[in-house]
């Protein structure tokens, strides 16, 4: 049996993990499952594609591939800008949709509203960018053998490194900084957080921003390995929730581990059973966790 699934699973798992971190953050602080999170992934990827095209048109040199990667500076810069824009998209969506619902204390309404927001955001992508597939890179990359019959492309190595940096930075922010302490406090007890002087509205805005930015990173990673399509984020939603719940809702390291496990499980299934069963894996993982350990690997009982 080839061990190639390890590399494929790790790369796929990183994409899932970055999205799942956003889901877990939003859930733990805002107490609702945001089904529009997949659309942040799509929007992040499309914004990166749009900005990369604009930067490439402004400076042709920036579009030259950064050897050994398949993309140029334009995509890197566009990705960073798009992370900020997708983060702001999350903040804006909260301001116009979820904050008014929160004031009425209607959390189930927020979940249903997130379905509506997802459809609206996806339809807007189709309206603005059409349904035709797009590509962040058309470069062909030669996979490098790294031993044990495993081959990886330089892009894949970069994606794993980006995930490690993003999750490590977020874990550091949550564990060792004042704003991270405030986010953990709001997650546990918003009323007490107000009593100790935390501006809960600011923490909520920051949560949306971070969740959106990480979803964008996930979208860019996805866009480097598959076609960019309006439904790319929505298709990832089930693995995202499976990973967040497997890791334990509210746990950032849990979402990372959960994402990697889901990615590896999908890759094993593709290799051993068949690609058509890939989608079912996340569903089985989700059911298995809910039956055997509802709090997930690192979650705490409510």
């Amino acid at each position, binding site marked *: 049996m080839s061990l190639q699934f390890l590399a494929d699973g790790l790369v796929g798992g990183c994409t899932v993990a970055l999205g799942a971190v956003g889901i877990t953050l939003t859930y733990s602080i805002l107490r609702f499952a945001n089904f529009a999170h997949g659309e942040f992934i799509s929007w992040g990827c499309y914004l990166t594609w749009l900005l990369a095209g604009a930067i490439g048109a402004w400076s042709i040199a920036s579009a030259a591939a950064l050897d050994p990667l398949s993309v140029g500076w334009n995509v890197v810069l566009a990705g960073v800008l798009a992370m900020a824009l997708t983060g702001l998209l999350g903040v804006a969506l909260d301001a116009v949709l979820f904050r008014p619902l929160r004031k009425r204390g209607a959390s189930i309404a927020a979940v249903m509203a997130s379905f509506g927001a997802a459809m609206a955001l996806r339809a807007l992508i189709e309206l603005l960018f059409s349904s035709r597939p797009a590509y962040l890179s058309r470069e062909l990359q030669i996979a490098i053998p790294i031993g044990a019959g495993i081959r990886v492309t330089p892009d894949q190595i970069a994606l794993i490194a980006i995930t490690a940096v993003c999750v490590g930075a977020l874990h550091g922010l949550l564990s060792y900084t004042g704003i991270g*302490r405030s986010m953990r*406090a709001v997650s546990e007890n918003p009323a007490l957080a107000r009593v100790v002087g935390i501006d809960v509205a600011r923490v909520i805005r920051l949560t949306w921003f971070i969740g959106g930015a990480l979803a964008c990173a996930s979208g860019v990673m996805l866009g480097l390995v598959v076609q960019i399509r309006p439904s790319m984020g929505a298709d990832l939603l089930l693995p995202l929730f499976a990973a967040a719940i497997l890791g334990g809702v509210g746990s950032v390291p849990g979402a990372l581990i959960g994402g990697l496990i889901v990615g590896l499980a999908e890759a094993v299934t593709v290799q051993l059973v068949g690609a058509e069963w890939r989608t079912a894996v996340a569903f089985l993982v989700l059911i298995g966790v809910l039956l055997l350990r509802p709090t997930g690997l690192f979650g*705490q009982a409510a």
Partner: protein
Amino acid sequence: MTSPCKILMVDHLVAGYEPSAPIVNGVSIAAERGEIVAILGPNGAGKSTLVKAIAGLVPVAAGHIRLDGEDITTRPAHTLVRGGLAFVPQTENVFATLSVADNLKLASQALAAPQRAGRIKDVYDIFPDLARQQRLPAGRLSGGQRQMLAVARALIVSPKVLLLDEPSAGLSPKALDELFRKLLEISGSGVGVVLVEQNVRAALAVADRLYVLVEGRNRLEGRKHELTADPGLAALYLGGGNGRAAAARTVQ
């Protein structure tokens, strides 16, 4: 006019979760610097709602709250702590998943950065038990230690007024004794302490002045020695119900 020695003045406050059904109906209380004020009353008298409204957690429909002369009636809850008003809720008053040190660091974020470490050290000096358990998650502390942490957390900002909602609830007599000794020390340093209590005996042991609320309104108020001599206190405090005899014994 605000009396210069009144650090907290609550004037004809009307408050409740639903504007159409206020729980507090025109209550007025005041606290001076260095004074312990106890708010008593039967269940449903609106005591907890009153302190939550002062702390900005329950909407105020009418009336005024003044802290050191400044009107804070409509100020958001998270800004009050910087103004010098600290609140210790009755339950879930510490962050159980955060360590003791992180609970205090969180509270210190309301201070300017250079003051934080020094103030945390000051509070550890007041509560040496907490200093020994800095790394322990607050959820693993005993009930008494948690209450101490909640008070320590409130003291980090050097408040002018400390509000406590039933601090004696669930505490052993030993822990209660220690907590109330700390409250006496705190008020002795010039802080106005306002506490809501069901435990009348405990409240009478430390309070300088008492307010008795019934059905969301002021029913009785005065200095402790005046009220304890008042034979009507038990009946007023009880407002009827099964606990009348028991509470009468407590007051005596």
